[in-house]
């Protein structure tokens, strides 16, 4: 029993990071109809920006904030300069654009920071642990879960309770109708991309202390986040959170009870199974073919 609880605790911590990544993917998919394959690399870039500041000895909190803002700015800029002007582009060509941008970003990071792994200094340690009953929780695990949940609720408040959030929902549903109410759809979408960038970079900063920082650090979490998004339903924000947490717990249980070696394969199994059994995902709406 305690073992099961242990797996759940570990799974939730990993899952909250998947949820953050998935939220970014879903946010962009439902508003711009773009699968952003550069999402992970953008996040890594944010972490590197923070890292550079920290190694220079600048104020720690300031560096994290600068990393988040940097990722936001590059994400919004990417939308403004490459995605938005391609007005009549097919979804395939947009996907290829994001893949190209992903390659460009990782190339840039390799060039600037090199491929050797770096230790990202973090105030929470992975080795200092607390015991709750029989369950062992490291500071870092508890911290990522807390920060993850905090960011998820922050996003939910932003989307549900603010003017910008209302405009974001309207633009996602019907950009033309929103523009006819004077809502600057382009700027609202750029803001959406910026928010997605922040969520991704935050996930990266929580992950970096556990896995070491290198230009390809987010490759695996991006795929996990993508699987979580598919699982929850590509156009559902709550779905992204549920999908992320479920995937995290499933993965940790699978590693514990079945095999650590094939843990990574689980997310692909999830993607395939969801696409076969329930393509709209757990909380998504069924697709209707438009005629």
């Amino acid at each position: 029993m305690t073992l099961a609880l242990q797996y759940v605790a570990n799974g939730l911590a990993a899952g909250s990071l998947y949820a953050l990544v998935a939220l970014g993917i879903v946010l962009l998919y439902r508003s711009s109809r773009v699968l952003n394959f550069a999402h992970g690399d953008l996040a890594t870039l944010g972490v590197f920006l923070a890292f550079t500041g920290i190694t220079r000895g600048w104020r720690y909190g300031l560096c994290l904030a600068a990393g988040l803002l940097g990722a936001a700015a590059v994400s919004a800029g990417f939308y403004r300069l490459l995605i938005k002007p391609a007005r009549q582009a097919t979804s395939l060509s947009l996907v290829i654009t994001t893949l190209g941008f992903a390659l460009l970003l990782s190339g840039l990071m390799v060039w600037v920071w090199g491929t050797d792994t770096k230790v990202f200094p973090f105030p929470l340690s992975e080795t200092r642990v607390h015991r709750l009953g029989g369950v062992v929780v490291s500071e870092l695990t508890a911290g990522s879960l807390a920060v993850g949940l905090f960011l998820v609720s922050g996003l939910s408040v932003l989307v549900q309770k603010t003017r910008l959030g209302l405009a974001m929902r309207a633009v996602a549903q019907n950009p033309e109708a929103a523009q006819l109410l004077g809502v600057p759809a382009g700027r609202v979408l750029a803001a959406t991309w910026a928010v997605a960038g922040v969520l991704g970079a935050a996930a990266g900063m929580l992950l970096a202390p556990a896995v070491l920082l290198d230009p390809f650090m987010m490759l695996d979490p991006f795929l996990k986040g993508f699987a979580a998004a598919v699982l929850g339903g590509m156009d559902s924000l709550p779905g992204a959170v549920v999908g992320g947490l479920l995937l995290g717990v499933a993965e940790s249980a699978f590693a514990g009870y079945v095999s650590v070696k094939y843990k990574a394969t689980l997310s692909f199994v999830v993607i395939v199974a969801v696409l076969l059994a329930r393509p709209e995902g757990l909380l998504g709406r069924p697709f209707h073919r438009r005629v």
Partner: protein
Amino acid sequence: MTAEVLSVLNVEAGYRKGLAVLRGVSLHVREGQVAALLGSNGAGKTTLLRTVMGLIPDQPEKGEVVFRGVRLNGKDPDAVTRLGVVLVPEGRGLFPELTVEENLQLAGYARRYTGREYEAVLDRFPVLRERRWQQAGTLSGGEQQMLALARALLLRPSLLLLDEPSLGLAPRVVAQIFDILKSLNREGLSILRVEQNARMALTVAHYGYVLEAGRLVLEGPAERLRDDPNVQELYLGVQREPSPKGFRRWRPKRRWA
């Protein structure tokens, strides 16, 4: 002669290159007047309104759209809206999953409206006040049209463009909406209305245009158009020619009913 709020000058526009839907259209809306644009299905009425708003990328191909001396060509729809040209589109453009209140709030995104403006608009459409927390998609057709108009008014338009505001509504609701349009116009609002139904279009209008396959074929003061035999035959459904057997049939066609 009063000044023009909107001038559409020799506009050619379409959705694909080489396939012009509008082929040299010129029309004007005068300050404080209601202009009606008639035409059958596919004539290009909606295309004209979309071109004015800048909703079709890179259009108009040729010609100019001028609002109170400002050239609208190439402006984004949200910028055109913020200048004071407000379109209630075909299908009304509501957000069915958002509440009535949220739909109204969106009109205040670019420029916040005051509590007084909000109350004044809701006084015109009392049903909306009762339905504030209901999803817009669950409103009746008439209520949806009211919501679309209310939202448009919160944007404080100088010129209101309406694409078939009477479409799919019961006669009583249509009459109610026309009364509202009439009183808005009396308070000084200029309006350009698109209708398929000439009888409806010309009841509340000072001036009318008839669009046929992308060209204007007729224009004139509303009363004159109402009496024009061509309009009567084509758009009011009154048949003049004798039937082959020599009987005169003044039977209205059902098409426009």
